[in-house]
């Protein structure tokens, strides 16, 4: 794996923060991706802007990967069981807990929401424990 590059990490993070800023200042909406997807799959005309945002994310990712990346993003081994189990838990958890890393993290912490701080500390804690168990106990 390429070594850690704090400059691109920081600039990437700032761009994400600017994205949330543009969406809130322009449209009054929170850039939380789990909520964005959940709203989009209601398929109502008033939610069409969510599809535009999600398409923009794919376009932005593709522009970086195929236009700017010094080397292709590394791809890890195909891990179907981890993807299915992990994806299901992420889907259930973000629906029940009303948000993910972007909604509670980037936007919630930006609003100084105590509720989001609790959510962030909780999902970080269980993620740390889960990775420890997966990599160092059951491996």
């Amino acid at each position, binding site marked *: 794996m390429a070594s850690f590059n704090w400059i691109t990490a920081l600039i990437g993070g700032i761009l994400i923060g600017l994205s949330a*800023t543009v969406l809130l200042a322009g449209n009054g909406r929170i850039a939380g991706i789990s909520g964005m997807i959940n709203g989009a799959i209601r398929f109502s005309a008033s939610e069409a802007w969510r599809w535009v945002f999600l398409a923009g994310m794919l376009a932005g990712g593709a522009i970086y990967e195929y236009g700017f990346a010094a080397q292709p993003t590394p791809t890890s081994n195909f891990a179907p069981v981890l993807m299915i189990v992990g994806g299901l838990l992420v889907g259930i958890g973000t629906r*029940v807990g009303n948000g993910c890393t*972007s909604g509670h993290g980037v936007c919630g912490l930006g609003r*100084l929401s105590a509720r989001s701080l609790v959510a962030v500390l909780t999902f970080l804690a269980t993620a740390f424990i889960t990775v420890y168990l997966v990599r160092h106990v059951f491996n």
Partner: protein
Amino acid sequence: MKTLTALIAGILFGFGLGLSQMIDRERVLGFLDLAGTWDPTLLFVLGGAVGVTVITFRFIIGRSRPFWGEKFYLPTKQDIDPRLVIGAAIFGMGWGISGYCPGPGLTALVLGIANPVLFMVAFLVGSLGGQWLLNQFQSKQQLTINN
């Protein structure tokens, strides 16, 4: 203007996730693996993002309305209830297992590999299942109240 704003915001978000390497699940898992060779990338990404929003949101929310809209759609819930903590805990487990959260999982679809495809399908099933569970729970609660 609203549509253009959503598009620009989406592009910034996806580009930022790519540039910061968050669409590489090994990077994310490297951050979450405190007992391994710890990778601080995610800390800088989240720090950079929150560093911006914590400043800009103060000014935005102080305005009476957004530039192209009638009002701000902000979360109204304030209470820290078991539902929030249980949901966040389940999300964290899934994040630790897969190395993806919804934003990077979606954006990683552009890499043309199978992992994010499976993750996103499972995410959608889990999310709809989670809504179903919430509905069951709510209707049960209402029955109790009515009785």
